[in-house]
């Protein structure tokens, strides 16, 4: 990984440190799986989601609420799919 991308990813990773444990756990698993393959579009979507307040973000990730934005919705899907249940199915 080049230095510039590494710095960008590291910043995003730190912004994934949240106020709610639920989100910390989701992001922990997300990075384990996607760190190497996250593209620019994914980075941008993630960055937008990380701007949200924690309760609003968790409402999206837990499926209680939905977003109309297709880019964000795709990222939410990725965050949801790394749940352990996905591995069981």
């Amino acid at each position, binding site marked *: 990984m080049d*230095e510039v991308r*590494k*710095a960008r990813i*590291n*910043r995003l*990773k*730190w912004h994934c*440190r*949240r*106020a*709610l*444990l*639920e989100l*910390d*756990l*989701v992001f*922990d698993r997300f990075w384990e799986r996607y760190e190497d393959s996250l593209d620019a579009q994914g980075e941008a979507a993630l960055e937008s989601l990380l701007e949200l*307040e*924690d*309760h609003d973000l968790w409402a999206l*990730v*837990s*499926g*209680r609420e939905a977003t109309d934005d297709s880019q964000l919705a795709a990222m939410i899907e990725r965050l*949801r799919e790394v*749940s*352990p*249940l996905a*591995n*069981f199915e």
Partner: protein
Amino acid sequence: MALRKAIMNYTVRKFDAVIVGAGGAGLRAAIQLSEAGYKTAVLTKVFPTRSHTVAAQGGVAASLGNSEEDHWHWHMYDTVKGSDWLGDQDAIEFMCRKANEVVVELEHYGMPFDRLDNGKIYQRPFGGHMSNFGEKPVRRSCAAADRTGHAMLHAMYQRNVKVNTQFFVEWQALDLVRDAEGDVMGVTAMDMETGEIVVFHAKATIFATGGAGRIYYSSTNAFINTGDGVGMAARAGIPLEDMEFWQFHPTGVAGAGVLITEGVRGEGGILRNSAGERFMERYAPNAKDLASRDVVSRAMTTEINEGRGCGPNEDFVLLDITHLPPETIMKRLPGIHEIGIQFAGVDCLKEPLPVVPTCHYQMGGIPTNYSGQVVVPRGGNHSEPVLGFYAAGECACASVHGANRLGTNSLLDLLVFGKSAGETAVNDLKNSVKAHKPLAQDAIDRSLARVDRLNHQKDGADVHETRLAMQRTMQKHAGVFRFKDMLAEGVKRIDEIAGQVAQTQIKDKSKVFNTARIEALELDNLIEVAKATIVSANARTESRGAHVRDDATDTPETPDGRDDRNWLKHTLWYREGNRLDYKPVQMKPMSVDTIELKKRAY
């Protein structure tokens, strides 16, 4: 001290006050200082409204009496009783008397409290809060829907912006700067974005860094709760008070920690062991699965310890709701289904959820008085203020929660003592501390050397593995139900792990947002808390509040194992030599009569 040149570079910035932490307590303290016109810096690892105060949903206790008669003295009684008489009665009186004032102030800052039709703040009942000295439940909790903590942070952050508080967001505080006389003159800190180290030179330093719930494997706390201020204080020679007292919640998702609300058992959820047995029938024949939190947690631990746990490691029990109609679960327990899927990989409509008693709140911390001053034993006085140093919120021990905290008293704690610490600092700046005391160079050098050691460590220990070893050891040896031999063995094991923490190694040496470095620095703080906890718990041979030992016997003199004759005292743990000392509990309130000792029964 031989320091490599790269790390020798640091700059000094001067402020009247530096506050570490931007959760509820830090923001409340900052308002006080900035409003008084003092140049105030707030350092925070994450953006203020991402602090863990966000997770507090229950509300904030205040005897406003908006729905029915209430009185601060009743609230005080409940808090003393809840603390199992380990709380200081002067600090508890102070907090309960100040509650209405800080809640009304918060309303003026724009906090959107839920309201009654007549416009007054709506109040709801909460466990342990009673009217007329324990008679019947009272409506005392003020909330903003289920986002009380979040709304509180927003209101206080906006207020701080208005009064020009200077925020340093994404800065990791490193060490306290304390001189040979014991006075404090600021902190060293690292800008995560650049890796730059800055000494924040201040006349007043306030710690509001929150708890260290991540010392346990199973914790409801967010990842940021690494007890940074508590670890920093310990390294600077400040003793830690009552660290053996941690509140556990019976049902956290095993391996994740996410809370499963008590409402699940309220709706008919049943706890089962590996044989499928409803084991609570043996421990609490009447209340069964609805027995109080501590009884349920102890029963679960006993089942696991006696080999009736579930899973490949036999280390959890099951919370079964498969007998409930799916529509009841989806309607009355929204969110539980999703939590089961996300964090346990279990569809709780079809399979039971794996659960364990889970660490939730740190009652102990940096010793303070009710004015928010950090206090240490000195010159024959057991609570002598440390000049220039204040603390508030979960990182501090005032001590209002004693051996066990009541729900909704944590948000009250951070408002009252955040304000109080800020107010005391303002008075000190006005009256006695006119100039910056010269920086203690040796303290700065020690802090730089700690970062330097980490940057250059070879053949050292892996941070993730070492942290996991600490967390598993704390969970097993100093969890919700404690055993003499396990504690003694745990003290040795944690001491070994502390040796590894001193030798942690990071592969990533980059400067910009180096999360590996931050995590290693956090582990330096966590291990101090873990040591303080297990050494203090090993020594306290009674059961009181959240500290429950198998070998503390129930006799007429020691009801439920509580031994007031020998243990009605605060623990003080010193990092140097892993040494313990004790100080008396303040039984005398500020103005009313002492709430006399009696057995804590509900």
